């Protein structure tokens, strides 16, 4: 089998034979991304309303359903309504620490079966069981780690208490967020990604970051658009004006 040294050696040999086609440099990276991001967030907090408006426009354009509530206590009502309208009973949600709100409590006794994902490592058998729960669930509720206004994108980071399957397996995905996670552009999202990987920051979280821009779709059959191919058929975003638990204002 080819070794690393051999493989790279061949590449170096070819590189030595040419200076390239024209002088070029990669993007200038921020020296201290987390610091830059803090500054950016402060700036963005002044114009969050515009970012939100833009987000809503783009989110709806790609088929997302937007909801807005004043206080975190109202979120469960929205979730219950979404489920009721679609005659859905099985709900799966992120752990409250990740969700930044308590859902299981307020949703109990409303005829819904809520499974809250555990906050830490579990046994292999339990993981298997939970996979079945997620696959059987009709509605998955997650938080949002980043909302990109330019494209109407919800970004979720995986990890303990915030499994990938919650936003992937159920036919309906509802994501709850507040103004703190809003950024305006993909370029700013790039800065966030730099910050999320700065130093050992990445070690504390899961291995998957997912940008979600609307419901799953395809146009592979005669270019006819259909939704819900493998991922969710519907994506809902629930915005909490007063902020979620543990946020800047929370």
């Amino acid at each position, binding site marked *: *089998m*080819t*070794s690393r040294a*051999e493989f*790279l050696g*061949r*590449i*170096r040999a*070819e*590189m030595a034979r*040419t*200076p*390239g*086609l024209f002088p*070029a440099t*990669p*993007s200038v990276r*921020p020296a201290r991304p987390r610091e830059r991001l803090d500054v950016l967030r402060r700036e963005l907090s002044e114009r969050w309303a515009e970012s939100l408006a833009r987000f809503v426009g*783009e989110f709806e354009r790609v088929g997302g359903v937007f909801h807005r509530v004043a206080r975190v206590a109202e979120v469960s009502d929205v979730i219950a309504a979404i489920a009721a309208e679609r005659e859905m009973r099985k709900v799966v949600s992120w752990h409250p620490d990740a969700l930044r709100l308590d859902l299981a409590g307020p949703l109990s006794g409303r005829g819904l079966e809520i499974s809250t*994902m*555990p906050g830490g*490592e579990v046994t292999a058998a339990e993981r298997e069981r939970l*996979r079945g729960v*997620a*696959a059987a669930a009709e509605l998955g509720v997650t938080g949002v780690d980043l909302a990109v206004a330019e*494209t109407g994108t919800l970004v979720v980071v*995986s*990890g*303990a208490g915030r*499994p*990938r*399957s919650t936003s*992937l397996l159920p036919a309906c995905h509802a994501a709850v967020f507040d103004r703190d996670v809003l950024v305006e552009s*993909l*370029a700013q*999202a*790039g800065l966030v*990604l730099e910050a999320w990987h700065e130093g050992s920051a990445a070690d504390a979280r*899961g*291995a*998957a*970051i*997912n*940008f*979600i*821009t*609307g419901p*799953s*779709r395809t146009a*592979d*059959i*005669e*270019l*006819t658009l*259909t939704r*819900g*191919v*493998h*991922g*969710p058929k519907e994506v809902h975003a629930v915005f909490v004006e007063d902020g979620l638990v543990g946020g800047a204002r929370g």
Partner: protein
Amino acid sequence: MSDPDLATPFRERASRALGDAFLKEALTIATTKFITLRQEAFGDYPEGEELRDRARAIKEATLQHLDQHLERLIDNVERRGGHVHYANTAEDARRIVLDIARRSGARLAVKSKSMATEEIHLNEALEAAGVTPIETDLGEYIIQLAHERPSHIIAPAIHKTKGQVAELFARELKRETRPDPEMLTRIAREELREKFLQADLGITGANFAVAETGTVVLVTNEGNGRMATSLPRVHVAVMGVEKVVPSMTDLAVFLAILAKSATGQKLSVYTSLVDGPRRSGELEGPEEFHLVLLDNGRIKQIAGTLREALYCLRCGACLNVCPVYRQIGGHAYGYTYPGPIGILLTAMLEGPESVKDLAHASSLCGACADACPVRIDIPRMLIELRKEVVERRIAPWPERVVFGAFGWLLRHPALYRLSAPIARLLQRPFARGGRIPRLPLFFSDWTRTRDLPVVAARTFQERWAERERRR
């Protein structure tokens, strides 16, 4: 097997495709739609032009330090518990993936759309080794069931009607339904959901790999990329070495233009950033992550004439605008990658002999270069390939003789001027009312469908010379 026989000359394969009325209509509708969507997306996006320049610069800059970026990528992937493998050839790559499958005892593999795995013909090898590969991108799933090859880089089943898909599902899956895309999609979702949950192995490509962080990036619309990299125990990503990008800041530039170029979307539905195997506390995610770095002809082009083709993002924009592709579709090209970039990639993977006809499957109109998000000058490289075919004597000798003679004639003006009276003599039996509707031999191909003009009774130079004589 719908794979056109490569022993059939390209011209014949192309003509056959031209006779397929449904294909023609499907291609017209699909390519026109993609063109419109792309134009709208960039029309609405003033920053787009500058970002295209930047994207091109990032690609070039990356190649200029490719070894360093790959070293960084490898170190980061390994630091996160992933394994990196090095495949010089398609065969090496197949062997590596089969090895991984064997060692992990995999029987069922789910595949997210990957042109790299098409390129190395992985599926046949997996099947032969007792591993069942299931394509999960709907278009790829359809053509897998039909035992065909993809006909477009991003819309592989563009050549199939919904009726044909319904028939296919009835025959291969024993699932009957109306030829309705909604119903057909639902069937695919159900069938494939089961496979995702059962599969031992997830095989993907990679649209990008970020060197700075060891992150593999998958761009999809359906969610199969997320499934394949979260549910099976083992994840293998096969990636051409040129897909590495230096940083997340660079990645954001590409994300801003890739989906717009491919389908006119601002972003595809899912952009998945995968940092290796599952971390502690995660419910999903593979136990093992493998990155297979693929050469297969790419490394040689770092200093070769096709270097610029290494910038390619596999968006398919060039296919959609190519007047040739739009008429004949992808299968007629005969290789994994069709369309303008496909000719270059075929030369890269299979050598110049493979494109002695394909290099001429272009009117050099330049629409591809215009559409390319990273501004690859495809026509220039097509001409370079034609040059290589001539210089290596791969081009047929009569052609080389004719062009050589033509070139000589152009440098001998007195003899060149003789060609007019000679042509006038020769054309007399064929000229009808100022046109030539039919010519034998060399130009008969032209006159089968078009008239030819007659050589003028007096050429411009003859008239000018006469005028000068009179003065």
